[in-house]
């Protein structure tokens, strides 16, 4: 079975290992991964900034690149949201593009949701001894209604102990341009997130959103360098049992 | 064009929203309460708001309870909605117990009523309905029952019949608002005493309305 990888801009540039991890996990599960080299970004940063004309241009490029794929998988919830929910809105006034956008919406999946709900797998063959906490990113949880799936994948990790932490569903304060435009408020939010994670005693904080990861891990590196946050895909891929 | 017409025209000329059918109205858990449970629920909700419920066997029992409250609270002067409330002889408080009872019917004008209501230690009124859901009283205000009696004095004593106790607000609204021509000029739901948490989120009772609420429920129908 073929799966087309959508590797978001943040992953492509800043954290390519997440993309590699996604490829590894899917390949291990017997999927044939396709990667369209023409892909760049879903356009979310432009859209969120209000630059709809520019975002439209990017959306059309995305649709051209991915338009024929039966199944697209991405390790970023907010990007999947952008494609699913905002592309049709963005292209409302251009009927043929709108139609293609609507079609695409049904064929794009967030990685953990794809593995658990479509491939029906919760044990990817990983092992980790330690305590693990999970941050529920806004677009993953409230945008896509994905919560059980990452937790099931974590539960499927041999030896890993899932630890709850306070306000795990609260926003981490990234919000794209927000973190740069309103730094003090953003800091107050990420500080709380980090404090709650640390208080839980978990060894590592997992999440499914590259933006949140940049924010939280950047904050941890500056302020609590002994603590780490990781993308769920990277964590699983790096902890796969050697066959 | 007059303002009204301008505003309505702007609204009417807007693109119409599609109206969708409403989903089923969700049920409330209180709807299945039987009388016993309603009384229990009413009491626990009311006392949670520091209100006090007394169950009186009959109207004589109710009068005794009323006198007990008056003694315990040291009350001397009252405004009462009428001389007999659900059969309870309020007038006797004045004639037999030497307390000062003012009945609005006996007052000449609004200002006298205001003076009396603001000066009284307590307002004694009927309650036309009660709602178990939240320990709430429902009062119809009309020429037999002025509004100020249950809001101006620092204490409110309400006398009601158990037959007027209902599970949820809708039961009461159905009755009060049934005939559009008979809707009272004011109908109020009253739940416990007046309260506020506006300073530091610290709650206290008796901001502008009564500090204490007593409900005497007559069980005999």
């Amino acid at each position, binding site marked *: 079975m*073929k799966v087309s990888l959508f590797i978001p801009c943040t*992953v492509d540039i800043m954290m390519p*290992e997440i993309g590699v991890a996604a*490829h590894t996990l899917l390949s291990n599960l017997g*999927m044939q*991964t*396709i990667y*369209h*080299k023409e892909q760049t970004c879903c356009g979310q940063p432009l*859209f969120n*900034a*209000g630059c709809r004309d*520019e975002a439209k*241009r990017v959306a059309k*490029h995305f649709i051209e690149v991915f338009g024929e794929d039966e199944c697209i998988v991405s390790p970023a919830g907010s990007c999947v949201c952008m494609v699913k929910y905002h592309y049709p809105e963005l292209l409302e006034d251009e009927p043929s593009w709108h139609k293609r956008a609507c079609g695409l919406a049904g064929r794009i999946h967030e990685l953990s949701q794809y593995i658990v709900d479509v491939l029906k797998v919760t044990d990817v*063959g990983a092992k980790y001894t330690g305590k693990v906490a999970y941050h529920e990113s806004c677009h993953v949880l409230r945008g896509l209604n994905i919560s059980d799936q990452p937790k099931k994948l974590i539960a499927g990790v041999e030896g890993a102990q899932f630890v709850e932490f306070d306000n795990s569903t609260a926003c981490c*304060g990234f*919000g794209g341009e*927000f973190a740069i*435009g*309103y730094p003090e408020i953003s*800091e107050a939010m990420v500080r709380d997130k980090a404090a709650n994670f640390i208080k839980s005693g978990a060894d590592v904080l997992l999440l499914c959103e590259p933006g949140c990861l*940049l924010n939280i891990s950047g904050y941890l*590196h500056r302020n609590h360098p002994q603590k780490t946050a990781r993308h769920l895909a990277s964590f699983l891929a790096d902890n796969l049992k050697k*066959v | 064009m007059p*303002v009204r017409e301008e*505003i*309505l025209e702007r*609204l009417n000329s*807007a*693109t119409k*929203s599609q*109206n969708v059918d*409403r*989903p*089923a109205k969700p049920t409330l*858990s*209180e709807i299945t309460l039987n009388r016993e449970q309603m009384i229990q629920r009413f009491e626990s909700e009311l006392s949670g708001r520091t209100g006090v419920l007394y169950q009186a066997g009959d109207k004589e029992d109710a009068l005794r309870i009323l006198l007990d409250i008056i003694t315990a609270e040291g009350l001397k002067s009252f405004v009462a909605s009428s001389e007999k409330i659900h059969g309870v002889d309020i007038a006797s408080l004045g004639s037999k117990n030497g307390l000062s009872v003012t009945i609005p019917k006996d007052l000449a004008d*609004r200002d006298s009523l205001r003076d009396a209501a603001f000066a009284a230690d307590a307002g004694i009124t009927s309650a036309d309905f009660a709602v178990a859901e*939240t320990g709430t009283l429902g009062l119809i*205000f009309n020429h037999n029952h002025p*509004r*100020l009696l249950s*809001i101006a004095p620092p204490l409110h004593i309400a006398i009601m019949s158990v037959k007027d106790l209902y599970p949820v607000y809708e039961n009461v609204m159905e009755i009060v608002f049934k005939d*559009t021509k008979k*809707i*009272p*000029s004011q109908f109020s*739901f009253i*739940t416990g005493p007046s*309260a506020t*948490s*506006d*300073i*530091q*989120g*610290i709650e206290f009772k*008796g*901001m*502008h309305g009564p500090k204490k609420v007593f409900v005497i429920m007559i069980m005999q129908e």
Partner: protein
Amino acid sequence: MHSHVNKFIETAREELKNEPSQMFLLMVSLGAPILRQIGMSSFPDIAAAESYSRAIRADVIARLPELLEEFEKNAKARGAKVLWAQNAAEANNIILDIANRGDVSYVMKGKSMITEEIGLNDHLIKNGVEVFETDLGEVITQNLNLHPFHLVGPAINVPPEKISEVFLKKGLIKKASTDPVELGGGARKYLRDKFRNLQMGIVGVNMAVAETGTIINVENEGNIRLIKSSPKTLVAIMSLEKVVPTIKDAIYMTRMLTRNCTGQKITSYVSMDTGPKKPDEQDGPKELFIIILDNGRSEIYRDFKTREILKCIRCGACLNTCPVYTKIGGYPYGATYCGPVGQVLTPMLAGIESTADLYRACTLCGMCKQICPAGIDHPSLLLSYRARQIAIKNQKGKKTMQSRGENAMAGLISLGMSHGWLWNFGLKITRPLMNSLAKDGYIGNIPMGAQGWFGCRDLRAIPSKTFHETWNDLPSLPEPSGNASKKEDS
């Protein structure tokens, strides 16, 4: 409408450092969800309860003009005088006029955000009519001249010492106190005689029932009931979206309002007035004026996208769950309405161009949308305002965001995002530039732009290869069964 949104960032910074504010906001953020959960627990199916209230508000929006006319007809049939006002000035003058005709020297007011929005108090005072706020929170903000900190508890954060100071000065208390009971008691005593002698009262309207012409007010303190009982003249002012179809809808919405607002199952008082008093009644208003106010709402309605803002029932649940509001409190929003409701409403009332921080200081986390009992999609509205702002700037030739530089950036970025080769090329140039600033694999600061990131965070250095560049080197991984799976370019 008066707004000081231009001070948003500055005020937010102050509030983040203000300990009493932070203490309250923590209390609100921790306590409110619990209280709401308890309040909503009567509904065996909370999601169904929310769907129903959202459907009621959607119905109101779909039939707004029709419902307003029905309300007016039924209110008038019961003797209420229904007046329409286009804007703040008209409404203020109508009310002043009523006060002058009645020759009143003072009025008393229930808590009403619409009256704050239109600046009623200032207008009356300027024209010789004294105004006494009666809701304790409003008494405090009136005397201290503060904007509301919270939709429902406007002065909840104010330290008792400050209240004591001003109450002492204004004669509400005889000796200093930090006890809320004593302070409240002082306000009660101070206002008592004024209630008793009141000739004209002003209240807002929580709900106007089309079916019966009834106006409904919810409150805990009793000041509104006193205002609706004592004086001969009552003015009730409502913005036009406050209408609900039926009395059953109204009581349903009342439940949702109180439970989403403070978690209370119901407020101490819910008073429902249908027309003025009847001739033989001894108290209650002889004259009831109901003012239906537009003040920008009909324009909001005509805009199909923004129309849903009018669903709001002013419960404040959005504030309590907003991660930004619960860090900065109400002051930065600089207007009558704060939190997410302020973010969606104020730009439409005060103008998109002067309220940028309101729709940009948001992570689009969706908590407000999730909890809203009226069904408003705040994030979608805020995104649309951002787009409108850019479109306005483009139209004016001012071009996107802050500067021509940023506009060029946006254009360049979108160009790069539309062409794979350009993307990769652009990266090859930027990467070494960024990484020249890295130390031990992390960037701690950059000299150009995006300073906000680095205040409290590092950024890992850009890896030497993008995923694009790595793809070709990725091995085909064998499946557990031993068959090599393939990876494919295209």
